[in-house]
């Protein structure tokens, strides 16, 4: 066992850190959009930054060189993800979905033409996908989805409704799961398609999220015609492709690094703030609370490191990823709630207030952290995966 990074990896970390210090735009820092707080302005800044990352090869560092990647080692990717998150670099959720799910799925299941058309552009930061998975009656039970894709001549015609489509109003393409065989059992008739969001027949209706921002959408497909060649992989085998994609490298390290920074800022606040004539840092309850957050975050970090290490050994984590996601989601909610207790009334204030402390990060996190144990597979679904895949408990 060896818990340290190599010298070469440490040099890489310093290089990333230095680059980020120079390249994160000032305007982004002023806008300071947290998770689920993006606006059109911040989205534009993020896309510009993502292209810069793409030029460095750091947007999709894992990809083969022929697709614009660096074939970077798993440990260096871990370091990169950690530094990007810690520095609060402009990266949207959707770019991660695009880079970590969509393109690897295309590389695994797609045609040569699809690989050529999309993967390199994704690695450059030129195109972004939104996910067309959830529907009003298909959330955790995703395989119940009803959106139809019917083969007609050289095309598929799509009808149905998707929901919780994050940044669908800003994305270039949709990675759509639709039913191609309504008579097969629910897992057997699903296929995956690439849909250009500018295709006629697509209507987008905003859903305003809990932070009062437009991040989600309902997306309606009314006789949307797409070329047949936009089917990815095998017809009716989409569910299995989708399940394999769930096991792609999905790291919670970004969350752990984000949370690490919040904890450090809370510690700083406790040291600098006096209440009733005493620094908050002298209060044993507050010391205990902050220490517990640090303990939990360290556990979360080790769980995330474990995933990268397993990949580096050629192992394929599955339930281990679920563990790390469930764990960090709960640590982040705990951090937000503990932060509120430490900040007291000041924790309630939003960014615009002159009295706000810590850039109102805690109150924003109190809201945004609710999504982390829900989106991308709820904590209950993740626990089912841990129990069934990890511990081999019976389904029935």
């Amino acid at each position, binding site marked *: 066992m*060896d*818990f340290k990074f190599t010298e070469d990896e440490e040099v890489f970390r310093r290089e990333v850190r230095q680059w980020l210090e120079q390249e994160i735009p000032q305007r982004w820092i002023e806008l300071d959009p947290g998770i689920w707080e993006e606006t059109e302005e911040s989205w534009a800044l993020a896309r510009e930054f993502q292209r810069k990352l793409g030029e460095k090869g750091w947007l999709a560092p894992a990809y083969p060189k022929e697709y614009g990647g660096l074939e970077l080692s798993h440990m260096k990717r871990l370091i990169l993800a950690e530094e990007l998150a810690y520095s609060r670099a402009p990266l949207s959720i959707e770019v991660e979905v695009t880079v970590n799910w969509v393109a690897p799925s295309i590389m695994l299941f797609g045609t040569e033409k699809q690989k050529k058309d999309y993967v390199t552009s994704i690695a450059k930061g030129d195109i972004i996908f939104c996910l067309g998975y959830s529907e009003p009656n298909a959330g955790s039970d995703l395989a119940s989805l009803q959106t139809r894709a019917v083969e007609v001549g050289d095309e598929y015609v799509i009808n149905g409704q998707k929901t919780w489509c994050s940044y669908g109003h800003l994305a270039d393409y949709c990675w759509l799961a639709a039913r191609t065989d309504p008579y097969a059992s629910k897992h057997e008739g699903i296929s995956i398609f690439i849909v250009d969001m500018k295709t006629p027949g697509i209507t987008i209706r905003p859903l305003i999220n809990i932070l009062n921002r437009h991040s989600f959408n309902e997306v309606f497909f009314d006789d949307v015609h797409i070329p047949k060649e936009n089917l990815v992989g095998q017809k009716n085998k989409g569910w299995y492709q989708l399940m394999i994609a769930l096991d792609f490298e999905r790291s919670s390290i970004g969350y752990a690094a984000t949370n690490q920074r919040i904890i450090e800022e809370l510690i700083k606040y406790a040291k600098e703030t006096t209440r009733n004539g005493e620094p908050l840092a002298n209060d044993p309850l507050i010391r205990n609370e902050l220490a517990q957050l640090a303990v939990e975050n360290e556990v979360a970090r*080790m769980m995330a490191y474990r995933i990268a290490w397993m990949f580096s050994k050629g192992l394929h984590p599955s339930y281990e990823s679920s563990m790390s996601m469930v764990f960090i989601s709960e640590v982040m909610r705990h951090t937000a709630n503990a932060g509120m207790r430490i900040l007291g009334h000041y924790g309630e204030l939003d960014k615009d207030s002159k009295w706000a402390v810590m850039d109102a990060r805690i109150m924003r996190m109190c809201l945004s952290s609710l999504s982390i144990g829900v989106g991308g597979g709820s904590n209950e679904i993740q*626990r*089912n995966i841990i129990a069934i895949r990890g511990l081999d408990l019976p389904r029935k």
Partner: protein
Amino acid sequence: MDLGLSEEQEMLKKSARDFLQKECPKRLVRQLDENDEGYSSELWHKMAELGWMGLVFPEKYEGSGDSFLDLTVLLEEMGYNIVPGPFFSTVVLGGLTILVAGSEDQKMEFLPKIARGEMILSLALTEPAASYDAASVKTKATARDGGYVIKGTKLFVLNANVADYILCVARTKETNNPEDGITIFLVDAKSPGVKCTLLKTLARDKQCEVVFDNVTVSEKSIVGKRDEGWSIVKGALQKATVAKCAEMVGGAQAALDMAVNYAKERVQFGRPIGSFQAIQHYCANMAMDVAGLRFITYKAAWKVSEGLPPALDLAIAKAWASEAYGRVTLSAHQIFGAIGFTMDHDIHLYYRQAKAAEIIFGDADFQRAIVARELGL
């Protein structure tokens, strides 16, 4: 970074598990829990033959010169199986302390005997204040006739009832700094004035009250330097803390395995209870606790093994372990239901261990206070 065990460690782990399954069945664990000695000399000597006692001692002391990390692996397995007896107090608390701070003569005298299974040690640190800070060391050692006379009461002393020698932490000087003036003495447990009384405890581990009633020891019995013993104690506590965490990893894993196996077999409402989501989610939480516990424990052990400053990682590991092991055994009890509430069933052995382990070397609150300090609060 490599979070896996080496091939040798995997072998050690497997051979330890196989050996203990065969040689230390739960029947024996119960027997030893119930008798006053708390260990089997037959098992003890077999463990010594396997080289366990001398695992981390250099070869010149008849050890095999393996790393602290290797010992961590072994302790995890001992925790998995629950091995009653004075291994922890002899090797971790006693042997490692002599190895780090003892004179060459002391090492030559004690370590080979420990390695051969011929010597049992105990560390008498805590007193009625029941705390791990220097200020609560009130037992006094007064210089007399070229030697020392020790007087005081030690409490919660592990395995002193069967120890050949007791490392006694005593005060040799009173200053304003409680960490100054502490000295460690190697006391023959048969010395006149040493009185050991077994305490009846929840885990039925052999904790003792040890009264030192004007016990005479020689100058040569000092481990390390006179008055400068606290830094040795601190080092010993650090190793002991991570070693205890390693046992806790094993114990938590065992409780998880037992509960999961039971959940697969126990049928209610016509199906295994492990197919119910409530039970599945208990098990998932337990598995997360165990996984987290294992990695932070090994991180702390690695730091100790590499000689890196381990204070923060140790405190993090024990803070987490203290609560996680308890949660895991509690959930296991919930899954076992009524059968777990019997002396016949094995799960209570782990529940008891978890409670004792939670407290020894500082509970979660104690460790979090260290974490806070280490974080600059």
